[in-house]
């Protein structure tokens, strides 16, 4: 559905996207995981035909965005990072005018609106002004709007950033249903739990480059151990103590507030730490996550 080869984007002499290769097959939920400024939105905007690539090759539905932008856009759904709803119109009219941009007959747009409002659970808000909606509702409305043309690919740029946990779960549930209905999802996020929950396949992006590619589980297996032992000592002690425990794990990461010891058996690591007469303030054993993959690949945390 989408293929990019050596895709680049520069703004002046700043390179936001530095040659990425991606290929997205029909029906998958494909994620771009990366911190602020990684180049995720820049990539999405090129795919959505609103930002001409500075180099490389890009094909969407086999077409070239530079030549067939309108044809591609007719078949895409776009949920941008920043809301672009018309806050002076009500929920219903936002969907209605948007459907008309795609050349759909009035009656058909109306039928779809009823279905979509139901799908995003905004039926009772149909006549409400957008201004009066909560952040989560606005996001759901944006998703409904992006579905009005029954897109083959739905592009979601940080669909849940800034929402509270409950609102995020509602959106995840809706996106999951879209995935089951066969819509190809392309989403960016800097939440590893979002990527793990929703994506079949993902790339980890950092500073305009793709640093890893795979399934969430595959990436964790490839770049991390099964478990992680987290040790919390007094403020400022972590750096010095790292040397005393680093032989206990396959790999160690020193964060300002804790040590991460990577091992397939976290409990054993904790026991060994205690047997060395070290007493961390707090300990925790957990499974490795994409956060650990990112940390390993870039030496930085995803959300700062």
């Amino acid at each position, binding site marked *: 559905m989408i293929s990019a080869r050596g895709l680049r984007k520069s703004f002046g002499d700043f390179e936001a996207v530095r040659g990425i290769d991606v290929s997205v097959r029909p029906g998958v939920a494909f994620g771009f995981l990366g911190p602020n400024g990684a180049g995720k939105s820049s990539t999405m905007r090129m795919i959505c035909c609103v930002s001409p690539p500075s180099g490389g090759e890009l094909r969407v539905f086999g077409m070239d965005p530079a030549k067939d932008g309108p044809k591609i856009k007719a078949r895409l759904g776009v949920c941008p990072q920043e809301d672009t*709803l018309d806050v002076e119109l009500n929920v219903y009219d936002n969907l209605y005018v948007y459907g008309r*941009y795609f050349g759909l007959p009035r009656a058909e747009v109306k039928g779809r609106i009823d*279905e979509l409002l139901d799908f995003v659970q905004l039926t009772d808000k149909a006549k409400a002004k957008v201004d009066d909606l909560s952040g989560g509702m606005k996001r759901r409305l944006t998703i409904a709007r992006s579905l009005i043309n029954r897109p083959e690919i739905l592009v979601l740029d940080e669909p849940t950033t800034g929402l509270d946990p409950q609102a995020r779960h509602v959106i995840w549930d809706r996106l999951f249903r879209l995935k089951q209905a066969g819509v190809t999802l392309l989403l960016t996020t800097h939440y590893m739990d979002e990527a793990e929950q929703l994506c079949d396949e993902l790339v980890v992006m950092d500073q305009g480059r793709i640093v890893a590619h795979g399934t969430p589980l595959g990436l964790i297996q490839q770049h991390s151990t099964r478990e992680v032992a987290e040790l919390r000592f007094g403020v400022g002690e972590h750096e010095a103590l790292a040397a005393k425990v680093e032989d206990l794990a396959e790999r160690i990461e020193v964060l300002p507030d804790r040590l991460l010891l990577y091992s397939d058996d976290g409990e054993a690591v904790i026991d060994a730490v205690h047997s060395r007469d070290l007493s961390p303030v707090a300990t925790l054993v957990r499974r490795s996550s994409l956060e650990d993959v990112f940390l390993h690949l870039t030496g930085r945390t995803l959300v700062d």
Partner: protein
Amino acid sequence: MTDYADSGPATAPTAPAGLVAGALRMGDYWLTVLARTWKGGVITTFVTPFFYVLALGVLLGGFVDADPATLEGASTYLAFVAPGMVAAHAMTIAFADLTYPVMGMLKWQRIYYSMIASPLAPSHIVLAQLGWVVLRALFACGVFLLVLAAFGVFETVAGVLAAWLVQGLVVLAFATPVLLFSLSIKGEESFALIFRLGMIPLTLFSGTFFPIGNLGPVLEKVAMVSPLWHGVDLTRMLTLGELDWGMVAIHVAYLGVLAAVCWWLAIRKLAERLVS
């Protein structure tokens, strides 16, 4: 909890077949804007003309004891000022519709960005927006002309009809540069500038309320650069039935070229802002 339903008719979404077809897809958008703003428009459309006619034409005009020879062929001051007020009204509509609303669509609500995410292009957006303001101005100026007609200031029906249609060109000659300006600025602070240094001086010194000959030979030449003077003079020739075809051609060409050039530049500017 319902699943994603994509039942019912499934017309395939398409790219628009042409410029006009694309702009027409935005017709329903502009109708929703109308539905939400018409109440405010009623006052400006129906009441304001009466105030102007009353205050400037009848009351002020009662003091103006000008020799008809100095009024470019008008028999009364009201007949002189009437076409000027109509053209100035068209200009005001252009300023009102293409300043703050454009900034809102670009910066505050960003709905231009939603439009560009659909199969529509900047050229469609600009055509629809300008087409809309032309319709709005024709309606408002039509009402204004009808009000004035009641005062018996027009010579022929054909002249008034032509003067009415000309307002479409007048509004475009302002709407296009103002749109270009609104798309070019960073923040809305700059609007104060074009209202104070643009719209108000244009209204006062473009032959609307007095012949530009009164400005003296030098300033008269300056006033001739004003698009509003071209619009006013053209409208006045038509309502008074004092046609100088050479001047008609000059006015139409001036306004037409200005509108066409700024239209083209506005499309480019909008594309530059939205596509980067």
